[in-house]
Structures are given as C-alpha cells and as structure tokens.
C-alpha cells in the first residue's frame, strides 16, 4: 500500500477521496489554487501545496505543477478525481516516469478509450452492441453525409475526443447535416484540439444506463450493477439512481456482463464506467467508457456497500480484487441529487457567493458529499457542483420520499447564492420520474412547460 496520496482535484471529490485515504491510514496531500486556499480538502489534508492561480489551466490542469507537488511531498500515488486531468494520459505517463502511481487505468488504455471512435471499434470487436454509425472518424462532409443517410435520421454527430456531454450535435434531417457537421468539427477543434468527429443514430427517447466496473491488474473484473442517469439537462446529469428502475428482466445483467467483457478486452485496470443507451424496445447500445471515478459513484456504493475509491486505491497498489461477481449483492435503492450553485430562474446561471447558512440534512440513510461549510465562499471560476445528496431506502418509493424530506432539510443561503435544490425537488416529485417513465428528454420537456425557464431556451 502507499504511504502518501496526492489528490489532484478540488471540490467535493477531493474531500471524498481524502476521506477514504484517511480511513486507509494514508497521508493526504491536497493541491490547490489561490482561489481554493481555504477549501474543505485543504483543511482536511495533512499537507497542502498551492500549485497555481485560480485559472485551472495553470493549477488543476498543470501536469508539471502537480507532479512537482507530488515529488516534493513524498507522495507515492496521485488520485485525479473526475474532470481536470482524470482522463489525461499525459499525467498518467508523467507520474509513471517519476515513480509515482497514477490511480487510474494505464495511460495506453486511457488514450485508446478516450478516442471515442477507437473505443467504439474496440467494443464492437468485443461483441458489444453499438448504435448504427461510423466506426472511424469521418472525412469529408460528403462522405459523412453518406454515412448519415445510410444510418437514417435523426443522427448525432459527436467529437472523437469528446465525452461528458460536450461536443455533440443532433441532426434531425439530411438538409441540416452539412452545416451541423462543420460546426461540430469546429467546436471539437476548439474544445479538445481535435476536430475529428463521428456519427451515430440518435435516439430521441432513451434511458441513459451505465455499468460500474472494477478490474485489478491480474485480469480479474467485476461489475457493481447499473446506474440510471436519464435525468439530464443539456447532457449534464442531475439525478442518478441505482439500480435502474423498470428495466426489462435480465437486461442489467446482460449489460453488466458486456461491460466486464469490454473492460477486460481493453486491458482495463481500476474503476470505470460503461455508458449505454437503452431504447424503448429494451435493446441497449454501448456509448463510451469513462476512465475515472464518476460524480454519481455514491449510488453504487450505497446499494453494494463497496467503497469504490478504496477499491481504486487497492487495485492501483496492485492488490487483487477482494471479491468475485457472486459476492456483489445489490440491496435496496439509492438516489443522488446534484445540488449546483446555479439559479434555475435565470437559465441555471452560476450563482456563487458566501454561504452564510449551510446546514446539510442528516438522519437515517442520508449521505451528503460536499465541500461546503458555513462561511465557505463558492468560487465563480469552477464547476458549480456544491453538494451531492444521496439517500438509500429498501424500495424506490421510500427512496423518493426520503429524498424529498432530505432536500427540504438542506438549508443553503447567502447573498447572491442560489441552488438547484428546489428545482430538483420538483423533478423528484414529477409523476414521470415517480413512475419511472422518464427518459433523457424528460427535463427538457419539464422545463419547456415550466416557469423556471421562461425563455424556453431548452
């Protein structure tokens, strides 16, 4: 096992990782920007290093600054959290070159699965079902149009280097294709420095269901069940739950087996997520692999009892998986709500500021993962995720009732500060969600009919 783990992240996930490190009796090094010098993880860590200014590209995205901090503090492992450098093969390589363990898959695996077309081709070979579409990045607009025509409309154009809901464009009919193709390529070049795109069929009504997998360095892999993340706004997840409600019998098991097969084919080591779309007819299609711990990992932890960050650290330290697929049992239902510092009445504009009141809910089967505390100043320059509220219950109606209670109990106020708590309460209360009849279009439909978003911009 390691002696010291440097956490190359901020916000709730940095604290989340630090907590498990402490439980494993590991020394914790936090790195932070000037903006985050009073952050919860800095207060929690054994040591903190200020690695750069507020701008993430010179702090949380600076590989040299992070490796320098690791070397000087004697860290023998780096946990990248999610976002930032979590899926950057360069950090993984630099860590390896300096004798530091990167807690994540090997750099080559990150690189291959990070290229969404390469990942599609690899999973196709491994026998996973894909949506009709291109297995390789597309060339000229005419070539791409021919592929789109052969798939049938609507199609979705995606950046090969994209992921996390960015660099996407839906094309409803052939006449709109050429322009959307150029725009997506240009956007991909801007966002990812890589203009390659691919096309696949777009499912207007589908469930986003993903499988959590865990592999050790000895070729053993298990899945920890599925999560439903269909409650999304503009491809950003808002509410997640495990298990996925109202799936056809046996579907989750088949998806789980597919994910493990795909992971082993890719040489995966660590915790990862296979994202699938489930069509109304019950068929499922591979979308992409996320080579990191996910924001929504707690719902899997709550139903399996397995601390995913602990297992990440264990397998990174070359330990074998301590359990087999048969040992993994899912109990009850867990739901997560993401409370963002955003104002739903102003089209979810960021609403940061000082938290004059910050009182998380408590009591039975309620978990809060947050870096907030009374007096904390939510910075304007980073992601607006302020807290994850997770509840568990024996069944879904009880979990929904518990989430309602817990959301009502969460008191966050401050000058200029708004959160999505009340909006999430309405989402959870909605009959479509309560009856598990929702799909990925649910929030957009809900907002279109709702005064939260009077401009109707969704």
């Amino acid at each position, binding site marked *: 096992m390691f002696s010291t783990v440097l956490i190359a992240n901020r916000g709730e996930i940095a604290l989340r990782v630090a907590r498990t490190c402490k439980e494993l009796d590991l020394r914790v090094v936090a790195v932070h*920007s*000037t*903006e985050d*010098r*009073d952050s919860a993880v*800095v*207060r929690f860590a054994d040591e903190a*290093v*200020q*690695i*750069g*200014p*507020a*701008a993430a*590209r*010179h*702090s949380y995205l600076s*590989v*040299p*600054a992070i*490796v*320098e*901090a690791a070397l*000087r503090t004697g860290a023998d492992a780096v946990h990248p959290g999610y976002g930032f450098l979590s899926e950057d093969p360069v950090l993984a390589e*630099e860590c390896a070159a300096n004798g530091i363990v990167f807690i994540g898959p090997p750099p080559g695996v990150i690189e291959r699965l990070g290229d969404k077309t390469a990942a599609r081709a690899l999973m196709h070979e491994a026998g996973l079902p894909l949506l009709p579409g291109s297995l390789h990045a597309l060339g000229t607009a005419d070539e791409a149009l021919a592929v789109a025509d052969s798939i049938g409309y609507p199609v979705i154009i995606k950046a090969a280097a994209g992921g996390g809901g960015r660099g996407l464009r839906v094309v409803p009919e052939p006449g709109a294709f050429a322009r959307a193709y150029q725009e997506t390529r240009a956007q991909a070049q801007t966002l990812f420095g890589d203009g390659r795109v691919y096309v696949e069929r777009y499912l207007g009504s589908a469930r986003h269901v993903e499988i959590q997998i865990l592999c050790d360095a000895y070729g053993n892999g298990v899945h920890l069940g599925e999560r439903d993340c269909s409650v999304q706004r503009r491809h950003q997840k808002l509410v997640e739950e495990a298990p996925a409600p109202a799936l056809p019998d046996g579907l989750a098991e088949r998806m789980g087996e597919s994910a493990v097969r795909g992971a082993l084919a890719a040489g995966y080591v660590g915790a990862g997520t296979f994202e699938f779309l489930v069509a109304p007819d019950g068929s499922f299609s591979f979308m992409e692999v996320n080579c990191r711990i996910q924001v929504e990992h707690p719902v899997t932890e709550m139903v399996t009892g397995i601390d995913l960050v602990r297992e990440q650290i264990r397998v990174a330290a070359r330990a074998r998986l301590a359990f087999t697929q048969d040992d993994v049992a899912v109990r009850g239902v867990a739901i997560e709500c993401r409370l963002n510092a955003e104002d739903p009445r102003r089209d979810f504009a960021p609403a940061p500021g*000082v*938290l*004059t009141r910050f009182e998380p809910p408590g009591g039975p089967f309620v978990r809060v993962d947050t870096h907030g*505390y*009374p*007096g*904390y*100043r939510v*910075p304007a*320059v980073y992601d607006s995720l302020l807290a994850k509220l997770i509840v568990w219950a024996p069944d879904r109606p009880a979990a929904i009732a518990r989430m309602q209670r817990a959301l009502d109990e969460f008191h966050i106020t401050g*000058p200029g500060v708004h959160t999505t708590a009340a909006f999430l309460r309405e989402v959870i209360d909605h009959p479509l969600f309560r009856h598990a009849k929702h799909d990925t279009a649910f929030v957009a439909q809900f907002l279109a009919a709702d005064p939260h978003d009077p401009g109707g911009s969704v």
Partner: protein
Amino acid sequence: MTLAPEQPVHDLAPDTAAELIDLVGAVREHATRLIVDLSTAPSAVRVRAGDVLVELEWQSAAPVAPDHPAPTAHSSTPATANAPAGPVPPDTRAAGPPGERTIAAPSVGTFYRSPEPGAPPFVAEGDLVAPGRQVGIVEVMKLMIPVHADRAGRIARFLVDDNEPVEYGQPLVALDAAAE
C-alpha cells in the same frame, strides 16, 4: 475616518508574545465572523480584547466580501485569476515594513538565485533593479521559469533560500520600491 481615536489601555500587564498571537488570531477570526453573520455591510467595525484591537472601515458602501470565517494562515490575500505569466500577487505571509513590495513565485517549484550551480546570483541584496530585471528562477519539472522584478527598486532581502521549494504565489524577494 470614522473610527475615532482609541485611548491606550495602560493598566494591563504585558502579555507574552505567544498569548498575543493566539489572541490576535481569535479577535481577527471573530471580526470576520461578525461581518459574515450580517447581511448588510457595516461601514466600520471595531473588535478589541485586552491589548488586541481589530478595526476596519469602508469608505463607501463597497461590497464587504468577507471571505469566510475560518481562514487558514494565508487568508488575507485576495484571490485572483492571474496566469503565471503575469505578475503574481504575493501572499502576505511574510509581509514586511510598509513601502516594501515582494516578488512572488510564478509557479510551484524550486527557487534558484543563479542561472546555474556555482554561477554568480542574478542579483544581490542592495542591488538596484529596473522593471523586468531577472532576479531568479523557479524550476518546475525541469522547466525553468524566470522570476522578474515587476517594478523598479532596491533588493531589500531574499525571503527564500537558494534551492528551496516554493509554492505558487510565495514571496521570494523583498523589494524596497521607495528606494528607486
């Protein structure tokens, strides 16, 4: 100002430095909390405990942006979003006499005073420097980042030894700007 002159307190026994350090921390902390707890910004605040006094006032109805009530040791620097290439606002951790400015580390890394081992230092204490004059190097992962004076002045003293690890924003050199 509006905070009227305060009379000295004569009769208290002199405290030890350590006690005063504890006390000033607590008083400053409470002053911050006091402000944080109010939703309307006051125009002046005074908190005194024995020999320790914290006073603040604001000239206009400027936004009192109390950061938060439990600052770490380096709480008093306003956070900024400057890129390393630009001038780095130094921490006030090693604040010197008034009129003295500091040059801050442009990166986490190791501070060197000389271009290479054994070579003479870029500058020595007492030197007059022009804006842009290189005064040291911060090395981060074999990348050498020059440290420049951002204004004219006299090198008052080095705040960090040669070959010492530094954090981003850490004051490296004290510059007597008035000595120009």
